C-alpha cells in the first residue's frame, strides 16, 4: 500500500509532514491568541528588574527553580496562590523550569526580603542550613548590564506593544531617563543591603548584578499586579 512512498523520497517527506503537522495545528493554534492576554493590572518589568531577569537566565537559575505554582493545596500553602496564565504575558521567554532542586520562586517576592536575598546569595547555608545551593559571590562584583536590559524593554515596547510609559505605570523614556530611573530604583534596593562595596559602587553610578537580581526576585509575586486579583482560593 505504501510501497510507492518508499521509492520516492519527495512524496515520503510530504506524507511525513502531513502526519506530523496535525498535532501542532490542533494543539497550538486555537489557543494562541487567547493565552497571550495579560491579567488585568499586570505591570511590565522595570529596567532594573529586566536586568535582574537577564542575570537569572544567564546564571541558569531556571535549572533548579520553577516559577509555576500548580493548583494543589500543598503547593498553594507552600508557595502562595497558584499561577495564572495572564501573569506571564510579558515573560519572554517563560521561566517555568522543569525541576525543583530548589523551591518554586513564582511568588518569592511576597515572602523574602532584600536583606535575606543578600545573605542567601553570599552564603546560602547561613540562612538555610542544609541548602545545596551554590553561593553567587561573583554577582557582587560584576556590573549589571543596563544597555541590554534597556534594549530588551525597548523591544518589548516597540515590537510587542508591552504597555510601558503609560500614566501611572512603568516608565521607560529615552535612554538617559531610563538610566536615571534605573539608578533610583537600584538605590531603593541598595539601601536595604549591607555590603559597603555595593553602596560605594552605586555612588559612582554602577549597579551590581546582585542588586538587579534582587530587584527581579522581589518583583515576583502578587506585587506584579496593581490590584491583587489572585488569592489563595483563586480569583
Amino acid at each position, binding site marked *: 500500500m505504501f510501497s510507492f512512498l518508499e521509492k520516492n523520497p519527495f512524496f515520503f517527506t510530504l506524507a511525513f509532514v502531513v502526519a506530523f503537522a496535525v498535532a501542532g495545528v490542533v494543539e497550538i493554534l486555537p489557543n494562541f491568541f487567547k493565552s497571550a492576554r495579560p491579567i488585568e493590572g499586570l505591570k511590565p518589568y522595570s529596567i532594573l528588574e529586566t536586568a535582574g531577569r537577564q542575570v537569572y537566565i544567564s546564571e541558569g537559575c531556571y535549572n533548579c527553580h520553577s516559577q509555576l505554582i500548580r493548583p494543589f493545596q500543598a503547593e498553594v500553602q507552600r508557595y502562595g496562590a497558584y499561577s495564572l496564565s495572564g501573569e506571564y504575558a510579558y515573560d519572554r521567554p517563560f521561566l*517555568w523550569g522543569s525541576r525543583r*532542586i530548589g523551591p518554586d520562586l513564582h511568588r518569592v517576592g511576597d515572602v523574602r526580603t532584600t536583606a535575606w536575598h543578600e545573605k542567601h546569595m553570599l552564603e546560602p547555608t547561613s540562612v538555610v542550613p*542544609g541548602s545545596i545551593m551554590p553561593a553567587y559571590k561573583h554577582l557582587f562584583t560584576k556590573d549589571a548590564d543596563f544597555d541590554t536590559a534597556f*534594549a530588551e524593554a525597548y523591544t518589548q515596547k516597540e515590537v510587542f506593544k508591552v504597555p510601558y510609559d503609560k500614566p501611572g505605570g512603568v516608565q521607560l523614556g529615552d535612554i538617559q531617563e531610563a538610566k536615571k530611573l534605573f539608578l533610583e530604583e537600584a538605590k531603593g534596593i541598595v539601601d536595604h543591603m549591607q555590603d559597603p562595596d555595593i553602596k560605594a559602587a552605586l555612588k559612582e553610578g554602577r549597579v551590581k548584578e546582585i542588586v538587579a537580581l534582587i530587584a527581579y526576585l522581589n518583583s515576583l509575586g502578587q506585587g506584579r499586579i496593581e490590584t491583587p486579583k489572585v488569592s489563595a482560593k483563586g480569583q
Partner: protein
Amino acid sequence: MAKTSAEYDYSIARLFIIAMITFGVIGMLIGVVLAFQLAFPKLNYILGEYSIFGRLRPVHTNGVIYGFTLGGIWASWYYFGQRVLKITYHDYPFLKVVGYLHFWIWILTLILGVVSLLGGITQSKEYAELAWPLDILVVVVWVLWGISMFGSMGVRRENTIYVSLWYYIATYVGIAVLYIFNNLSIPTYLVAHTGSLWHSISMYAGSNDALVQWWWGHNAVAFVFTSGVIGTIYYFLPKESGQPIFSYKLTLFSFWSLMFVYIWAGGHHLIYSTVPDWVQTLSSVFSVILIIPSWGTAINMLLTLRGQWHQLKESPLIKFLVLASTFYMLSTLEGSIQAIRSVNALAHFTDWIIGHVHDGVLGWVGFTLIAAVYHMVPRVFKREIYSAKLMDVQFWLMTLGIVLYFSSMWIAGITQGMMWRDVDQYGNLVYQFVDTVRVLIPYYVIRGFGGTLYLVGFFIFLYNVLMTIQKGRVLEKEPAYATPMGMQ
C-alpha cells in the same frame, strides 16, 4: 551490480565517529560532575563561576544531544547512507565536500556553543539554549545534512529507500520545523541599537512560549533520541546479526503511528500548568497511546533475533543492541505512566523525570550508538576490534551504572514528591522544602556513582576503539555480518 566494500568512502564517517566519542566523553564527564555537585555543593567552584551547576547543566545536555547523539547519527549516515543507496562519495565529489562542510561547521557550532553557554549566554529554553547567531549556524549545519541526504537519494542506484532512512528523513524534517519555530526571536540590538549583540527575546510570551518550547523539547526527544536512534538500530541490528527485520508490516505500522502520535504528547510537560486543560488531557491521552508504536518498534527489534539468541552469548555487540531495545521498552512504558495526570502531579519537578530520561538516553541511545561505532570501526579502519573482553566489561559496568542511576532517581523522585504534598491531620505541611533536599543526598551519591560507572565504561570504549585503530589485527576483507573481535 553490487559494489565492493573497498569503494565506499568512509573519510567523513571517520571524522564523525571520533568527534562523537570526544563529545560523549566531555558531555558525560560534565554529567558526573553535575551529579556530584548536588551532593557536594563545594564542587560548584572547581572552575569559579563557570562551573556552577546552572552554567554547566546546559553544556551537559547540549554536549550529549548535539555532540554525542547527533554525532553518532551522522557517523551512521555517512557510513550506511552510501551502502543502502548503493553509491559512493568517490563518484560524487560534491556530496563529499558537503559532508566535510557539514562536519566542520557542526564542530565550530559546538565549540562556540560550549564557550557561550559557559559564559552565561543562553536563551534559557531547555535544549534550545544557544543564542540566536548560533541558531543560524545550526540551521546551516542542518541544511548541509539535508543536501547530503536528499542529494544522495537523488543519485541513488537502489530503488527503495531503506527503513533507516525513513526515520532519518523524519528526524531531519521534524527537528527542522520544531527548532526553527521554537527559536524564533527578535535580537534586541537590531531594534534598540544598544546592549549585547547576542541577546534576543522570544517571539512568544508566557504560556504560549511554554507550549512552543515543550512542543519542541519533547519532540527533540522524539526526533533525535527516538527516530534518529531507531533509524540507526534498524541498520545495525539486522546487519550485525545477519537476520532480516522481523516484520515489514510491523515496521510500517510502528513508523507511521509513531510519526503521527509523538508530537501530540509534548504537552504532557505542561500538565497542571496554565495551558488549557484540553491540551493537557489530549497530550496525556496521546502519551499513553504512544506506547503502541514504541513497543511495536522494540518488539520488531527483539523478534529480529528469534532463533538467534545464542548470539547474545557470542557477541557483546549484540548484547548492547538487545539491551538497548529493552531499555527503550522500559523508558517508553515509564514515560506513558508519568504522563497520566495523577502520576504527573507527583512526578513532575522531581528526579523521577531525570531517572526516566536517563534510562532512555544511557540505555537506549548510548547503547545503540556504542554498538553502531563498534560495528563501524572495524569496517572504516579495516581492523578487527581489539578486545571483546573489554567490550564485555564495558557492557556490564555501564548496565550496572544505569540500574543504579534510574533506581536511585525513582526512589528520590517519589520520596520528594510525597514529602512535598505531605500534610498533617490539621492540613499543615509536614516538611520544609529543605527537608526534602536533605533526604535526597544519599540518592544523589548513588546516582553519581552509577554515572561514574557508565563514564568508566565509556573510557573503556574509547580505549578499545583507539587500540582497535592502532593495534587491531588488519582485516583483508570487510566482514559481511558479525564483527570480528579479538579475545584478549
